[in-house]
């Protein structure tokens, strides 16, 4: 399947990456090249195969649901581009 320009724009929107009109055609070509190459997976018989979801062949370890860390807001906020008191600040969101 081949991506059209509208789909490239839709993916960029979903990925929250601003895309200039001039970039759409280039990315369309690159993405279609990669997806076309990936299509070869369609020749593999995967009937009845359970998907492998993780890298570790072990059961996920559980831990107690307790607070083990935290209470240092200055360290957490140290890299914030903008802050207001002990909060991260963003432009006003109005519905």
């Amino acid at each position, binding site marked *: 399947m081949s991506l059209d320009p509208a789909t490239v724009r839709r993916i960029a929107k979903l990925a*929250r990456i601003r895309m200039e009109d001039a970039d759409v055609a280039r990315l369309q070509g690159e993405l279609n090249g990669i997806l076309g190459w990936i299509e070869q997976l369609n020749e593999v018989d995967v009937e009845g195969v359970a998907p492998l979801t993780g890298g570790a062949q072990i059961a*996920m370890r559980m831990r107690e649901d307790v607070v083990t860390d935290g209470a240092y807001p200055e360290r957490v906020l140290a890299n914030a581009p903008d802050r207001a008191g002990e909060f991260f600040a963003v432009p006003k969101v109005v519905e």
Partner: protein
Amino acid sequence: MLLDLTIVEAAAALRRREFSARELVGAHVDAVAALNPRLNAFITVTPELALAQADAADKALAAGDAGPLAGIPLAIKDLFCTEGVRTTAGSRILGNFVPPYESFVSAQLLRDGAVFLGKANLDEFAMGSSNMTSAYGPVENPWKREGSNAVMVPGGSSGGSAAAVAARMAMGSTGTDTGGSIRQPAAFCGIAGIKPTYGRCSRWGIVAFASSLDQAGAFARTVGDCAVLLGSMAGFDPKDSTCSERPVPDYLAATKRGVRGLRVGVPAEYRMDGMNPDVERLWQQGLAWLRDAGAEIVDVSLPHTKYGLPTYYIVAPAEASSNLARYDGVRFGVRQDGVDLIDLYERTRAAGFGDEVKRRIMIGTYVLSAGYYDAYYLRAQKVRALILKDFTDVFAHVDALLTPTAPTGAFGQGEKMDDPVAMYLNDVFTVPASMAGVPGMSVPAGLDGQGLPLGLQVIGRPFDEETVFAVSQVLEDAAAFSAMPAVRA
């Protein structure tokens, strides 16, 4: 010459007080100052920190309570968060990020007394096979084609880590390997590199790319030095839910086991049409070395090998698109202002990410999107299960596999840059082991017809790094690889 010592030799000499940690580290700090402006192997250098750590190591050595890596100067891939030292992941978007914590793996090395020279250059977010996608400029491979001044790539993504060790700027370094990012640059730079089993090293504090594949490992100029470094880095960390609780064996001792009686498999599918004849010759030579050392060579089949790369280029971008969603200009990193919050996100990510990262986020977003998830992502996970089954089946009959590390030696800067898929094919021999989560090591074994180093890859059973080290040591001894890069301190 302090710069040519191995870690094992230097650690012993430091204990005998033949020289001080200050002298050893000082020589490497000078080497970094002299060569880094050219090679660009480090994004950030920390000479004052390194010398202070060296003085602390000298005190510990004098007091008799020094750790096994006391005074050993290392490069740390700039994907490991280092407390108080800028960590960029090779991206503009983290250009001002100073972690308030230390990654588990780098903390293990510090616990053992290691000295950090700085943060090694890499492909942006570890996405690349040439180090050409770094926002901080490419790394020059210290090796040259005979009779040519063309600048070669060091491989990637851990290109700076590999170049720094090859050029004698550092005695060892950390890397991460998601699809070949330790093994391929090790091969391109003529050094050794180990990617351990998935779960052997904690991922905590390593900037995430593809979490089901990412694994930390080590570079050094010898197999034994890699064993020492991995022994320090590995270990249980409750903060990574996929980190193994298995005890860490004595890897250096394992390098001395030999291969007598071991069965080493040769996967038929790694013999590709049009294979580089130098690579093919070295592979046969490697098998002969192992046979001479007492191993039995066995032909085996990994039937889904050719599907490793296309599977990887669904799974890894899918995980990356999720992991990199956090770079939104709100909590850390470089923000671009917008008229509203969505505009802020979109402008921040457009300006902060490079082209390869954007491509992979877009591919990942697409294969996870409604209507395409089953056709791409779910199918890839099923093929991944078949790839794992290939390895599980052959490891019922053999103890290790021997393959080339990469299809060719290093290529020049600017080559393979126009077609993303041509670049991806570099990882054809390394990606299947990543998909299966099994350990792999690249050992420098010879030169190609142009005078560039080539590596052989040893692949082992899950959590059997000991056999990987044993086989790799036999290869290293037989190869007696003594060629030196053109550019070195």
